[in-house]
């Protein structure tokens, strides 16, 4: 039974620190306590625990624009976060953890704000069939965690730009993202703010457990050295990229020199193998392209003779 609520809001938008706070709170989980943590990230593609970072988002475009890629320790697909998105995290002991109950706190908060939100499948909350909240879960023998997004006024064009909603066929080991039709709360109510959503979530939780004691925490109440240590773990490029960075790309395109079926095997940003099946008459030129593509780093200066291939791949990925 829940007899204590712990409520905390992140004070910054730096994704790795916000993840560090979440993980720290998970480690503090005690029987009888429910923690609600509210946080937002600046320009971040947030990938699932077992996803391939390279095949799930346009890494180079994102980092060039000053965005972040972060890997969460829960599963599922890639989502985009910015200041227009609020994240909530419920943490409780396994014996107190109840996903249906947590969802009802969330949908109750939405109803209080005038939104007819309902659960769709096991992970999504929708309004009018449009997903505005994706949810994911982690379970250990003791502590459990349920976190989700709330799209309030996220930049739709950034979602399109940074997430691979791709016409290119990508082959990678790992969990694939599924494209969803998404909606912002602001599409239904223009004046809604993250602040109001956060307050509504807190009120909904408090009225669910009216007899529980309440503790409102600030970041300053947490052990700073531990938070910094965890922040460094989440920011570590090896953790974010993962240990399996190989993936394949396949696409077809009609070039001036012929129709080409292109297969590229990547290791991170570097092309390890290239094969072009083509009806081009100049087979020598196609073989030269294959040779130049092999070993090319797509984030560096590209040889003009293979620019067409790299550019169509980029354009199709977008």
């Amino acid at each position: 039974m829940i007899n204590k609520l712990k409520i905390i809001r992140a004070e910054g938008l730096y994704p790795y620190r916000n993840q560090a706070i979440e993980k720290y709170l998970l480690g503090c989980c005690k029987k009888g306590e429910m923690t609600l943590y509210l946080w937002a990230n600046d320009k971040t593609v947030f990938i699932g625990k077992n996803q391939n970072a390279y095949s799930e988002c346009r890494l180079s475009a994102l980092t060039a624009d000053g965005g972040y890629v972060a890997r969460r320790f829960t599963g599922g697909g890639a989502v985009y976060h910015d200041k227009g998105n609020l994240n909530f995290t419920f943490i409780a002991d396994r014996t107190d953890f109840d996903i249906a109950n947590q969802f009802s706190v969330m949908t109750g908060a939405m109803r209080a704000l005038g939104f007819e939100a309902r659960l769709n499948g096991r992970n999504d909350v929708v309004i009018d069939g449009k997903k505005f909240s994706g949810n994911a879960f982690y379970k250990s023998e003791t502590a459990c965690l349920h976190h989700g997004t709330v799209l309030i006024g996220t930049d739709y064009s950034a979602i399109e730009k940074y997430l691979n909603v791709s016409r290119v066929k990508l082959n990678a080991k790992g969990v694939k993202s599924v494209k969803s039709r998404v909606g912002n709360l602001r599409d239904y109510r223009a004046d809604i703010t993250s602040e109001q959503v956060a307050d509504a979530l807190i009120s909904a939780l408090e009225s669910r457990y009216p007899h529980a004691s309440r503790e409102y925490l600030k970041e300053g109440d947490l052990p700073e050295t531990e938070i910094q240590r965890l922040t460094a773990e989440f920011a570590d490029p090896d953790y974010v990229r993962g240990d399996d960075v190989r993936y394949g790309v396949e696409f077809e395109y009609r070039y001036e020199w012929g129709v080409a079926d292109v297969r590229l095997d990547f290791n991170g940003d570097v092309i390890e193998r290239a094969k072009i099946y083509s009806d081009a008459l100049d087979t020598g030129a196609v073989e030269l392209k294959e040779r130049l593509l092999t070993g090319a780093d797509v984030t560096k200066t590209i040889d003009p003779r293979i620019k067409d291939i790299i550019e169509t791949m980029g354009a199709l990925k977008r």
Partner: protein
Amino acid sequence: MKILFRESHEWAAIEGKTAKIGISDHAQKELGDLVFINLPEVGAEVKAGDVLCDVESVKAVSDLYAPVSGKVIKVNEELESSPELINQDAMGAWICEIEVTDVPADLMDEAAYKDFIKG
């Protein structure tokens, strides 16, 4: 061979000095369809009760615990590309093999485990 279960729903099939490790049919039903498994590393020394590896299902990421202590000597690489084999045959789809140094006394035999999950 002797099959013992941990309260967190892993099994150990002990034969001589080694044990194959997996999760119970009850656990696979609770987890739902598995989409990914991070196998333990060969050579890793584990203590009973330590996190052995983790799995991602359509519902959640969940930690799995070592039912016995010892050294991981083999992993079932087939599961990397087909984690659903655990859903299809949980008692057959072993995750890893451990060279056993200690078997905790609180593991349950199949009859006791069946009672345990009935609650």
